[in-house]
């Protein structure tokens, strides 16, 4: 029986490749992976509210005419909001049943395309919209509405900013 003799080049190549392979395997062996799970939960937005600004209204409303709408918005959330739309959800009320029955006060049209900045946890500046509110003629003339301030229920639409 005869053994084939390895050449010098073969031995060097073998050693080199062997060390390379061993190094790769050793690295693979000594790494340690890990995995696990968790969760993330989003907060829910709190509704915007309005602030009573009745003291700053101007007495410019009369039957058949239009008047100024004043509104200030409060944002209870922890992020700033930009209000883009204001729309009435009902008629205005004065607190006087006789007046409310005789005359109807409402928004002329929804206000859209606005950009009212409301800081996180704060109030916007008082917004003034001329000719945004109208008072129609009642079925019978009623003077009980004179000097009254009307509250109009509105919905506010906005996005976080």
């Amino acid at each position, binding site marked *: 029986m005869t053994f084939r003799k390895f*050449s010098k080049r*073969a031995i060097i190549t073998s050693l080199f490749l*062997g060390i390379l*392979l061993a190094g790769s395997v050793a690295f693979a062996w000594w790494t*340690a992976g890990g995995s696990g799970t*968790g969760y993330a939960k989003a*907060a829910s937005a709190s509704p915007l509210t309005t602030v009573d600004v009745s003291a700053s209204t101007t007495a410019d409303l009369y039957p058949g005419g239009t008047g100024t709408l004043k509104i200030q918005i409060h944002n209870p959330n922890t992020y700033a909001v930009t209000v883009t739309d204001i729309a009435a959800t009902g008629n205005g009320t004065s607190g006087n049943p006789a007046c409310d029955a005789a005359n109807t006060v409402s928004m002329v049209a929804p206000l859209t395309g606005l950009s009212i900045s409301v800081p996180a946890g704060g109030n916007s500046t008082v917004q003034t919209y001329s000719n945004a509110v109208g008072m129609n003629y009642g079925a019978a003339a009623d003077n009980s509405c004179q000097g009254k301030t009307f509250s109009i229920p509105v919905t506010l639409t906005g996005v976080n900013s």
Partner: protein
Amino acid sequence: MARPVRSTVIAPVIAGVLAVSAIAVAGTIGQHGSITGQPAKRHLAIHGHVRHLMPGRPKILRVHVRNPLGASVAVYQLRAVVRTGRGRRGACPAQVIHIRTWKGFRKVAASSRRTFRLRIRLRKRAPDRCQGARWTIHYHARSVRL
């Protein structure tokens, strides 16, 4: 008569097989040679959660990495993958959540725990249906034993 295979091909193969065998044997002894006979744990355990995400506001996600191994490791990458979320208003895509992968080199000693801080953000223009939604996060760590 078949031509004999050249020694330059056979020799590296033999050397490689020997090297792999030697390391595998050594590794087996190191991993399963415990007296109790319990199989040794080979993976890091990771968990972490965050609540009250607000659109556009980054938060810190604290991720706890526990090393149950018998040796210290150095974590060099911690990656989080978010799955589609679900809330009262329906499904919310995972794409609205962005978690930055942690990269560095931090030692976690044997049988101990360390906390990593990842930056998480809910996209500013996340849909309304994402309010109150909950997403599952899968963590993947890469580490090297020290």
